[in-house]
């Protein structure tokens, strides 16, 4: 299945992409995708333990599972206001 990945702010800069499409196996978890991404984007490792995730604009956790056409956002700790 196909999913979209979105990266923001410091994560975007560390990864070098803003939007990305991936073909992944059905029922893949956020955690698994993250492991895959770290292979090509080692800069992601510096965020270990601090990242937030959202599927289709709703916060989720690392165990959450993606469906076809989902958008996974990888978010550094927020600092708005």
């Amino acid at each position, binding site marked *: 299945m196909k999913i979209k990945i979105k990266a923001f702010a410091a994560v975007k800069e560390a990864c070098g992409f803003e939007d990305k499409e991936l073909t992944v196996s059905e029922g893949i978890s956020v955690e698994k995708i993250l492991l895959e991404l770290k292979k090509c984007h080692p800069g992601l490792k510096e965020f270990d333990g601090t990242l937030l995730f959202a599927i289709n604009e709703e916060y989720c956790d690392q165990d959450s599972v993606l469906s076809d056409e989902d958008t996974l956002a990888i978010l550094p700790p927020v600092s*708005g206001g």
Partner: protein
Amino acid sequence: MIGSGMKKIILQNEPIDMAQMLHEVESDSDGAVVSFVGKVRKNSRGKNVLHLEYEAYREMARKELAKAADEAEEKWGISNCLVAHRFGRIEVGEASIIIAVSSPHRHEAFLAAQYLIDTVKKKVPIWKKEYYSDGSSWINDKE
């Protein structure tokens, strides 16, 4: 959004017109309007700030802010509320965020305004990058 009050979420690049924002939440049955303005400070973490840049995951930020506004209405029965956040480049002294809440009585308006800004700082996907004379840095610690 739920409830009968006006709840408005604004994410914009342009400077925020404070008088306009306060005007938007007014109603003749409300005795109290509490507002919070967050501004770019010239000093941060011991460094001299030249300007800021805000980035937002806009669709999601809008949703999270709308949820927070609904929660504030549910919890405190406020009448109207508005949250306006700028993104892009913002200069020292300019407002990055304005929150305005109207309510029949003041206590609820204070609590709701504080809840909204606390929620922004904790949960809304917006990020701040500080620019100094010798570089720049994404901010990701809590105040």
